[in-house]
């Protein structure tokens, strides 16, 4: 003897974006906070020490924002023209920035006036940064040169004039205090060692380089320029590891997350893409309102700050982790009687007899078990099921059809219920997963309620809606068939060109098109 088997509700794999651990992680941010800056935001840099303030360079000012502040907590505005690339030192005490007029200024975080000013370059300095020994600064500017400055003396140590175009990006190695890298619009990335007179390595990126980045290990170099993000192995002498082409406009900024497992790239195409650094596949992507110029991620991925061309600063904070303890607390029985005997731990020699598990049937299953078809259909036409889980409604309809009682379940309904049924059918009949069942249902409804057509305006309207939906679907299918025909001809010409395995190519193409068809 078997027990009652509940109706099988078929779960269909969700089409489109798959929910992975990554999407869940990167979706866990609150709605963004928008802060208007004075001009295009060219650099955002987080202080490496708590409370992780960040410096935003826009127009002629450098604003320092606190973690949750909407207003800048500090402003450095002693620039005559645009400021560039405000960068914190590793200890978070000093800030260096380049400027349009060519001077490099060094600020103390607590002070307001610059501690040092390095006047050497004649043209705009777009990139500055500290070397990892904290006492030297590197810079790159529009005079094609890359220079190294000494902070205590305030003098230039060395200047390399190897680039043949503007130097727009650079970074220092965290492993070696003498090594820094600059990228230039001459399509090259050059690696300099402060101990030598010339560059150590030159990497040909192929496009004007907008951003460079070194991995924490210092062995891998990422360069962005044009639509490409390329990863190079420095230890192998600058061998190209992988070339990513996921943006359709110039990639402007790069950033690593705190664990180093994910690489983020921002682009003028308004997207931030997140790559896994193991597979170099895009695992997630963010969409922004305007073109992105700069991007930064706070330690522990708490905040994503994105600067746009229109001067808007977009700040996203991470949602606090949901606590699961509360929900567990609720489950515990409120009364002493509920816990009676449950806390008893069986001894080793005790023979445990498990209580038969009481199966809880859904309402429609109870009705189906007692062969009440009409009531079962009523149960699945209730709003929560009908609206949120239409597959349950359709599964019960199919089960009724299988039992041969669908017609009697559909019959004998009043205006309101017919209206409800027809609304459901008209809305869902075009979904491929429901079509076979709902077509039968629609057939039966029209069959049963044909005599009453014209008696109720509401029902008539629903019938018209159903007709319209089906008509649209037919047109759509015809169009798809046309597309299929066109693709077939394309594949036919394709198979003529390549003589190998004609059969396979053709049929593969066919299955693909069929799949897309069903997906739609």
């Amino acid at each position, binding site marked *: *003897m*078997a*027990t*009652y*088997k509940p*109706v*099988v509700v*078929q779960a269909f794999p969700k089409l489109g974006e*798959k929910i*992975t*651990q990554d999407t869940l992680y990167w979706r866990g941010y609150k709605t963004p906070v928008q802060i208007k800056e004075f001009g295009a935001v060219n650099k955002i840099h987080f202080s490496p020490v708590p409370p992780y303030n960040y410096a935003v360079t826009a127009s002629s000012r450098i604003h320092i924002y606190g973690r949750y502040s909407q207003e800048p907590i500090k402003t450095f505005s002693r620039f005559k023209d645009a400021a560039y690339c405000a960068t914190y030192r590793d200890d978070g005490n000093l800030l260096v920035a380049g400027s349009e007029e060519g001077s490099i200024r060094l600020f103390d975080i607590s002070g307001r006036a610059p501690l040092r000013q390095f006047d050497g370059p004649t043209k705009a300095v777009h990139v500055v940064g500290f070397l990892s020994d904290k006492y030297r600064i590197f810079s790159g500017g529009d005079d094609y040169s890359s220079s190294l400055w000494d902070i205590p003396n305030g003098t230039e140590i060395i200047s390399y004039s190897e680039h043949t175009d503007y130097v727009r990006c650079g970074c220092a190695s965290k492993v070696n205090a003498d090594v820094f890298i600059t990228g230039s619009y001459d399509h090259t990335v050059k690696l300099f060692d402060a101990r030598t007179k010339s560059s150590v390595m030159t990497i040909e990126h192929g496009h004007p380089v907008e951003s460079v980045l070194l991995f924490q290990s210092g062995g891998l170099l990422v360069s962005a320029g044009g639509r490409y993000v390329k990863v190079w192995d420095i230890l192998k002498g600058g061998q190209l590891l992988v070339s990513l082409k996921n943006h359709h406009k110039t990639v402007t900024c790069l950033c690593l997350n705190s664990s180093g497992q994910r690489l983020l790239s921002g682009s003028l195409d308004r997207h931030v893409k997140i790559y896994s650094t193991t597979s170099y596949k895009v695992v997630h992507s963010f969409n922004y309102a305007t073109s992105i110029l700069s991007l930064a991620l706070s330690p522990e991925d708490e905040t994503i700050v994105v600067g746009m061309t229109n001067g808007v600063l977009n700040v996203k904070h991470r949602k606090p982790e949901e606590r699961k303890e509360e929900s567990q607390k609720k489950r515990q029985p409120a009364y002493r009687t509920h816990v009676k005997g449950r806390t008893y731990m069986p001894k080793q020699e005790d023979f445990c007899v498990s209580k038969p598990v009481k199966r809880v049937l859904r309402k429609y299953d109870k009705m*189906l*078990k007692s062969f009440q078809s009409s009531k079962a259909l009523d149960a699945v036409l209730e709003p929560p099921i009908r609206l949120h889980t239409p597959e349950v409604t359709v599964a019960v309809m199919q*089960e009724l059809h*299988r*039992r*041969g009682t669908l017609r009697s379940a559909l019959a004998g309904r009043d205006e309101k219920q017919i209206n409800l049924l027809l609304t459901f059918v008209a809305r869902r009949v075009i979904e491929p997963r429901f079509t*076979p069942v709902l077509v039968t249902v629609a057939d039966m409804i029209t069959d049963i309620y044909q005599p009453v057509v014209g008696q109720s305006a509401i029902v008539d309207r629903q019938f018209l809606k159903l007709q319209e939906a089906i008509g649209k679907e037919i047109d759509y299918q015809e169009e798809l068939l046309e597309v299929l025909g066109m693709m077939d001809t394309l594949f036919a010409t394709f198979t003529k060109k390549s003589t190998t*395995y004609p*059969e*396979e190519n053709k*049929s*593969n193409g*066919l*299955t693909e098109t069929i799949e897309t068809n069903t997906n739609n």
Partner: protein
Amino acid sequence: MVAPAGLRVVRCGGGGRLSSARPVFSADAKYLLCASGDFVKIYSLGTGETLRLMGGHADVVTGVQLNPRNHMQLYSSSLDGSIKLWDFMDGIPIKTFTVGCKLLALYALTSCEDSVFVIIPKSGERDTFQLVSVKLTKAAGQNIEAKDLSVVLDGVDASPKCTAFGREGEYVASVKDVNLQVYFFKRKQLNRFSVNTMKTKGGNHDFTCVVCHPTEDCIATGHADGKIRLWRNFHHKKEYTFSTLHWHHDIVLDLAFSVEGTSLLSGGVESVLVLWQNLSDRQKDFLPRLGSGIEYTSVSPDGTLCCTLHTDNRISIINSNLRFSRSIQGLIKSADVKTGLVVDPRTKALVLNGEPGHLQFYCLQSDQQLFSLDIVQRQYIHQAGLKQVDLVKVAFSAQGKWLATVEEREEVTDPELQLKLWFYDEETQSFKLNTRINTPHDDHITDMCFRDMDEMEDDSLILVTTGRDCVFKVWVMVEDTDPEAQQSVSWSCDFVGSYHNYQATNCCFSEDGSLLAVSFEGTATVWDSVTWDLKCTFCHPPGKIRNICFGRLTCSKYLIGATDHGFLCCWNLLSCALEWSAHLNILVLQPDPLSEHIAAVSWLSKESSLFVFKPNEPRPIYIQRNLCKEKIQLAAFVPRDEPETDGSEKYLWLRRSQLFFLTDTQELMTLSTKPLEERLTASSKQLAVEESLPVTPFSLLLGRHRRQQSQEDIDLGKLVIHNKQEQDSPAVKELLHTPAHVLPSASFLCPIFIKSLLISKENKSAEEVADEVEMESEKADDDSDEERDVTEMEQEDTSPSELLGEMTCKLSKHQEKELRKIRKMDYSWISAF
């Protein structure tokens, strides 16, 4: 070439259909007696085992009744025209009464001791039957002619359910079509009633079954429209009354009154057992979802159990409080075996359709169902005319790790198809659903096979399905890259192949898995299984290809196909040419997985023939004409556990595997070189009867205790001492033999009694023990033989030991004679201790 006498067709599956007669409980409600094909089967109700299979009738057994005078005997009637009297405890036929015409039903009454009632066809008229009483003479001898027939009722229905005898055999009620006739023996009065005269709405009022109340004058009848009528006061032709009970929506198949007659059990095709309390409509209890339609119900004489016999050859034992207790099932006979006979590589069980929507794993060795796998996982509605989801195709991968099933539901517009792939879970020891594919093909799936390679790793497993939508599809396992997914592999379509828009009918992989053969109507195509290139095509017009298979081992270069135009063709894959062909109407083509032999079953004008051949030679190595009269639907080679060694040269092909057939009447048959082997030897059967007592925790406890004791006793050789102690203790004797009214109070007797049960100190020296044995053996002369035999046997076993050596010398001549007798006897049962 004539079939040698050595090989014979053996029916297996433990007899035929059970549904030819109502099962009968033995008087003590420990055994259930059923008619099963040509046999009478006895089941133990405690364990559900088949205890005995009593054969002797030459045709289907139609009735089984206990002998009203002796409850250890039973009458059985058969279509061969004989009534047999059996001692069913020992399985001995006592008497055979030859009546001489077909017996369709048998009734035995307590009131008329020397005669039984049978239904026989009326001589000279077709399709009319009469109820006659047969006088069973008490003449000596095994075979007795019983020609003393007297007609009781004319024009009765042939079904045994349509006639019933009233309380104490005063009257007999019989129904046919819309008429009920009641005949009173004493008054010799015949009353006829008809439901046609009554005012009723449309519907089929035909009677289907009748039972009589055990104590009152009341008749219950079941009707084809689902109604049950209770007739009373039928002594009068006019003033009779009846009441109607209606719950069944379809035909009532059988009824049964409880022992006291307070309630009525009814069953129908809904497979729900209904208990009508107090014979009223108000109070009824149900036992739903019994699996399939209830053909017969019967109640045990003590009222503790009832059993239902189902249309699919299954018996359910049900407690008196309508709780399902156990089910006795062998090979479940489903309406149509669509899946074919498949062998599970893991259990070597035969796999085929079982209950609707289930797959049964049937163990051939033990004639038991191993388990039933629910494939469809939907509630089965027992209703005529419903199109249910049915299981149509099954395939196992080489090691039985994967199982693929196809289920479909006929629909007017498009069939509802599902392909399911099951993974064998080692932990739960059962199959677990891995992938479900909706509408794998646009039309029916005609064939399915796995790439059958033993040494291949799992990830290269390939499944091929062919469909009537003119394509074959290749399914492969895909590993899910997402590590968080619940299962790491799933199946998806890899390749779709077609050939000139012909329907794909069969598919088959070569032994090494490198080639796939797919037949498209009249053409067989061969595909490379790596690149999915079409390699070559074969055809043998006219006619479409019905079966296709590759040769194996040394014959792996051949492809064999059978066409529906009556040709068996063998193509050479190396030369791409026809090697040979034969004109045979082949229905079944089955290659042996362990050798190069191929079995082909042909059907020619009402008889099936078997041909066994090797593909490399056109002459068959074995032919068996007239295999059976029925059409053979399916065949399967089941690998033997150990290869047979004594087979002669001619039956080499049967050495490593056994061939099984399934006919269209669902009869499972096999070929055997040995004479019909008895499943159980006589002695072990007897044991089975004894041991079939229900095992309770107490008996287990006691059993273990006893076993320990007897083990110790055997070691010391003092089994008898112990027995003696128990029996000869004066305290026990006193307690048992003194009349109760002269006994002293229990508190006085208790200490003596308990003391007598205590075992005296165990730390006796070995010599003491020996002395005691000696003493006892002398004393035991007048004791029951058997008991002493045991001791002596034990002593004989331990005779090398010095202590007992002197004892054996003392045996008298009489004892020695006995000893010799004992040596010849079978003591295998001792091992049970």
